[in-house]
């Protein structure tokens, strides 16, 4: 078990309907694990008066009905769940591993990034060139290997409908970090794989965006029309706590998978998985190999 002392949770009232809980000021896998563990327990408790439970990267938020559940009573419940989670001997969550095929350096994000070059830190290169350079990689190939090599936690779903924020399962010193665009773009292709701060994301809809653009996935992740069999009635594929493994693909496979998606025949590779935080901390790279094997 990790011996790091947990920072005390900070509970803050957001007027009369929301409680905001910060678990850590900085992003850590421990804080995310605590957020997902507390919110999963809160959800299964089916406490009357709770309306929405939103886990985030290092915090979470609860919307509640103050006419049925007082802020003080809610805070007591959350504190007790936090104690329960912190006292666990075995730190695991039940989740799934999902393979996301990515065409890195694709023509569509390339066209878009060239169109908005005047808003970028490095007007003479691409977003991939820039990210590889400032993170000390020996070229774009090595950078793509790092991005697609180790798996990611979906640490939050939101901003807009169905957009996953992902935090890579590697030690702090190997985290990729890039700033957002100097000024946000007014356009981003749907299903762009983006990056900002220490988070990767997949844009669920076409629209404005400030994250660096690395590639595009053929996998539909938001389905308001209900035409994708791999997406349930919520219209949204990802859930906080999902584990994602990117796989670099070539153009011909991309085209084939897009055709599958358009015909409603896309089948993502998904496998159930029990994540163990201490096993992971003990050997992150060995753990990454095991995650990959789950999909074989």
């Amino acid at each position, binding site marked *: 078990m990790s011996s790091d002392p947990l920072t005390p949770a900070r509970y*803050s*009232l*957001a*007027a*009369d*309907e*929301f409680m*905001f809980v*910060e678990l*850590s*000021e*900085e*992003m*850590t896998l421990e804080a995310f694990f605590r957020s997902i563990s507390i919110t999963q327990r809160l959800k299964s408790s089916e406490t009357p008066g709770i*309306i*929405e*439970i*939103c*886990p*985030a*990267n*290092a*915090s*979470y*938020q609860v*919307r509640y009905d*103050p*006419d049925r559940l007082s*802020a003080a009573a809610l805070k007591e419940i959350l504190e007790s769940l936090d104690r329960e989670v912190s006292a666990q001997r075995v730190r695991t969550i039940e989740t799934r591993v999902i393979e996301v095929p990515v065409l890195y350096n694709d023509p569509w994000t390339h066209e878009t990034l060239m169109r908005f070059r005047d808003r970028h830190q490095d007007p003479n290169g691409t977003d991939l060139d820039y990210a590889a350079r400032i993170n000390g990689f020996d070229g774009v190939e090595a950078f793509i290997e790092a991005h697609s090599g180790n798996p990611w936690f979906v640490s*939050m*779903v*939101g*901003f*807009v*409908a*169905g*957009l996953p*924020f992902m935090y890579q399962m590697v030690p*702090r010193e190997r*985290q990729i970090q890039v*700033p*957002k665009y100097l000024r946000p773009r007014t356009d981003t292709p749907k299903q762009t794989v983006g990056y900002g*701060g*220490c*988070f990767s994301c997949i844009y*669920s*809809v076409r*629209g404005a965006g400030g994250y660096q653009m690395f590639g595009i996935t053929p996998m539909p992740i*938001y389905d*308001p029309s209900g035409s994708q069999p791999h997406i349930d009635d*919520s*219209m*949204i594929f990802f*859930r*906080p706590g999902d584990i994602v493994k990117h796989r670099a693909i070539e153009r011909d496979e991309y085209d084939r998978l897009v055709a599958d998606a358009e015909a409603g025949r896309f089948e993502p590779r998904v496998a159930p998985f029990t994540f163990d935080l201490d096993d992971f901390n003990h050997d992150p790279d060995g753990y990454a190999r095991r995650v990959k094997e789950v999909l074989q």
Partner: protein
Amino acid sequence: MTIEVLKPGLATSVQDIGRQGYYHLGIPPSGGMDQRSLRAANLLLGNPEGAAVLECALMGPELRFAESRLVAACGSEMTPRIDGQPRPLNEVFRVPAGATLSFDFVKAGARLYLAIEGGIDVPEKLGSRSTYTLGSLGGLEGRPLRADDRLALLPPPGAAREGRRLPEALIPSFSKHYLLRVVPGIYDHRLTDESRERFYEEDWTVASEADRIGYRLKGGTPLSFHEREPPFGAGDDPSNIVDACYPIGSIQVPSGSEPIILHRDAVSGGGYAMIGTVISADMDWVGQIQPHQLVRFVPITLEEALAARAEYRKVLEGLRKMP
């Protein structure tokens, strides 16, 4: 029975009381920004209180009715006209078959709610007919109205009565200078004491970027944050946080310069510090503020927010019991 959209207006969309339970997936509540006026218009007609209506922002649409229907318009002051003849706000009136319903320029408030006997018939998505434009979800094809759109209607419940009028005491009166009550918190400890105090002492002007996602404010003194070493993953600007959820009504301050109040089509999360939250009872008023009007924030306690919530409930009860 259909309605033909001759002119869409500035930003007209189908809204009801919104959807619940999907914010953790990035889907905000949507629904009418001024819930009280939306509910009032439906209740006047004997519709279900949460039936789908048209929310018309600042400049109303022009609509041709294929068949005769009773309607009620509540909210901002935009005089309705039938084939050019004025009709009253806050009162049930009939639109004859083939007639055109239009609206004058807005005199006060920002959003009018046009309820039609029976309610608008668009498919329910995740339990609501409300339009969520960013996600292309709900309403008519997930977007605001356009010219040549056709709107279908549900059968009238038959309870509506021409001339039925909202009691004067239940008609809101709009101003040009709003006091919005706020429970301070979330990340307001990041502000310097002086900056936090000044935030509540100054008038803020609503910018032209004021829509269903949020209201941007200008004209106050930029806020200053305490110096710090940026936490890992937060970003370098003092207003940055590790991306978190945004409560509806929360006030965020990107770079400390222009506060934004998030409303019912909110982006559900992001990386800017929030310094407080507008209480639920005042969110209807936010939806009625026009660009260039003034806002002052008033800090209150949770107990005061709960008292205001109870008062708001009484107003809704009054609407349900009106003669």
